[in-house]
């Protein structure tokens, strides 16, 4: 065994989701000089969540661009940069501020590849810190993923942990298609060991993160942790939940879910977005169609209520939590 190998530095580090994203971005920028970051306050400040901390200092202002305050402008110029052969990675400061850019995302980013019969690819990552639970004012706690998942031409992922954050951001940047990359802002400070020399699994795949037999619980982004907590609590009551981290929201990877539901016969989907036409609707429809004869109960949905995200003093009432997941599990078992 060579000396080099013995001396190789440890490749596993304990990282927060935020830091994992920062390192993943850094590595992507090192790997490909065409990667350019654009956003409000991402340069000198390093972003309001510091996800781009230090990157402008090391890669310069041409690659980490503090833009004017205009989201359509950011997305629209990113389209132009992508046409020119760059790989723009755009930061939307908060979920609620993606809407000024919605026209560019829906009518341009999503359609350019199809419009041009594949001649104009749109490799682009739209990073959005999403979801609630941080005690913020209006527009800072939204979960807009269903809008994007309903839009053909976009791919949408939501990470739930530092490992997926580190690899996922690099994979999203390497992806030749536009990826809406959702970051669970209230979990930015959650930690886990990340092996930066490992070989990551595919970006667009769901994953069973806890085995179980009674009910299949699906979640993504910030709700994965909630689902796992619910599974733990359920265990003490002798109930066994299988938890799937969907990871990819568009395309949905439901084969592992079907397998699970065929075994458990029961399924609960959890997300923060309003229930009506949230991801739970689509998943319920597909799971029911595919596993019709295996289902002992309808697929139940736990989500935000169909109201504007409330003032923060009410967000605990609004957001799905362990108890609401367990309540749905109870109801599923009751059918």
């Amino acid at each position, binding site marked *: 065994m060579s000396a080099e190998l013995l001396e190789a530095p440890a490749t596993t580090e304990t990282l927060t989701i935020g830091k994992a994203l920062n390192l993943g971005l850094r590595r992507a920028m090192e790997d490909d000089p065409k990667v350019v970051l654009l956003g409000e306050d991402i*340069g000198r400040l390093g972003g309001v969540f510091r996800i781009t901390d230090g990157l402008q200092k090391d890669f310069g202002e041409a690659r980490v661009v503090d833009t004017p*305050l205009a989201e359509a402008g950011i997305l629209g110029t990113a389209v132009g940069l992508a046409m020119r052969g760059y790989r723009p990675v755009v930061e939307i400061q908060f979920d609620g501020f993606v809407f*000024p850019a919605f026209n560019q995302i829906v009518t341009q980013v999503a359609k350019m590849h199809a419009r041009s019969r594949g001649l104009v690819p749109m490799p682009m990552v739209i990073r959005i810190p999403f979801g609630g639970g941080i005690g913020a004012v209006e527009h800072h706690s939204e979960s807009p993923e269903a809008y994007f998942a309903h839009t053909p031409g976009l791919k949408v992922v939501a990470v739930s942990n530092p490992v997926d954050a580190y690899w996922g951001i690099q994979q999203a940047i390497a992806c030749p298609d536009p990826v809406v990359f959702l970051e669970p802002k209230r979990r930015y400070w959650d930690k886990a060991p990340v092996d930066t020399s490992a070989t990551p699994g595919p970006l667009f795949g769901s994953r069973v993160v806890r085995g179980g037999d009674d009910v299949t619980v699906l979640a993504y982004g910030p709700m994965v942790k909630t689902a796992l907590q619910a599974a733990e609590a359920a265990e003490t009551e002798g109930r066994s939940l299988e938890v799937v981290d969907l990871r990819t929201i568009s395309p949905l990877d439901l084969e592992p879910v079907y397998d699970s539901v065929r075994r458990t016969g029961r399924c609960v989907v959890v997300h923060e977005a309003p229930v009506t036409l949230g991801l739970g609707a689509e998943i319920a429809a597909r799971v029911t169609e595919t596993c019709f004869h295996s289902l002992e109960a309808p697929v139940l949905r736990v989500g935000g*209520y*169909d109201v504007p995200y409330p003032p923060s*003093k009410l967000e605990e009432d609004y957001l799905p939590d362990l108890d609401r997941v367990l309540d749905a599990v109870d109801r599923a078992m009751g059918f």
Partner: protein
Amino acid sequence: MTALRDETDDADIGDLHEVVDPVPGAGAPHLPQQPDLVQLLTPEGERMEHPDYPLDVSDEELRGFYRDMTLVRRWDAEATALQRQGELGIWASLLGQEAAQLGAGRALRDSDTAFPTYREHGVAWARGVDPLHVMSLFRGVDNGGWDPVERGFNLYTIVIGAQCLHATGYAMGVQRDGDGSAVLAFLGDGATSQGEVNEAMVFAASFDAPVVFFCQNNQYAISVPLERQSKVPLYRRAAGFGFPGVRVDGNDVLAVLAVTRAALQAAREGQGPTFIEAFTYRMGAHTTSDDPTRYRLAGEVEEWKLRDPIARLKAYLSRSGLADAAFFEDVEAEADRLAARIRSGTVEMPDPRPTAMFDTVYAEQTPPLAAQRAQFEAYQASFEGGEHA
């Protein structure tokens, strides 16, 4: 390509350096004068006249401005402290922008309507909004507790620039009603880059709407300095849309009052919109979540302290004998009482009813949402019954 570039160099759109200079002279002795800046009170507290903006203001009003600005600054300091102590989720400080806000706020008549951003606590004050109704927003109890219709002061708008269109549309309504009132839209320097803000200028110009755009250029949009948004002075944006723009010393409450009053009067008279750039400075952090040391030097802040809006009015009041020590002490005492009221009112503020979130989504409740509300109540009740305990 000389032909076109020559135009850039002419007086009309040149002067790039003026803005690139981080602290363009708003009248401090060691800084160059800005020829296009309206000023009625120098940083040293000297009263000046401006040919276009004669101002008639009573001694009472002058003292009133001092009181307003001092009380609002104290409120702001108390709110920052309350946030540090965990009593507010966040606070957006107006420190340094008191003159811009009180001057503009006091230029309004009762029947006028203002459309703020999220930082116009001084305007809220001028509109008679209870500070606790602003605190409740930052505490997360509601999205602003005042009655926007009764106060003529819309709720805070957090999506940058969106309110400029609302103000313009509201002004189009005023125009139809013909009641001679006017509308004041607030925005920041960063907001000038938003498409919606520029669309508001298009609509306002096209319909001659009685709206005044009041831009507090506090030199930053969070960490991003003004020159990223525009390399030419912001007030010049208006001319390209076909209406006048004017730059006023935003730390000079009298100049702000005079300019805003004139613009509102023009709007009332059917002369259409005006864009006012109030040249000022955000003395504090963007919000309590922000760390401005990451993007600006302490020296810059120090230089702007020389142009403090309250100090200059105090100097003027003292020097001209309009106010004595007793007056200043009274205001301080009043500020203490206000701070105490804000503190106790904030920490004692009751949490909202959880079902509240279902009740005002629609003016006419829908059956599915009523059902969700009922489920929610039943679910909450199940805890009280200990079912989930």
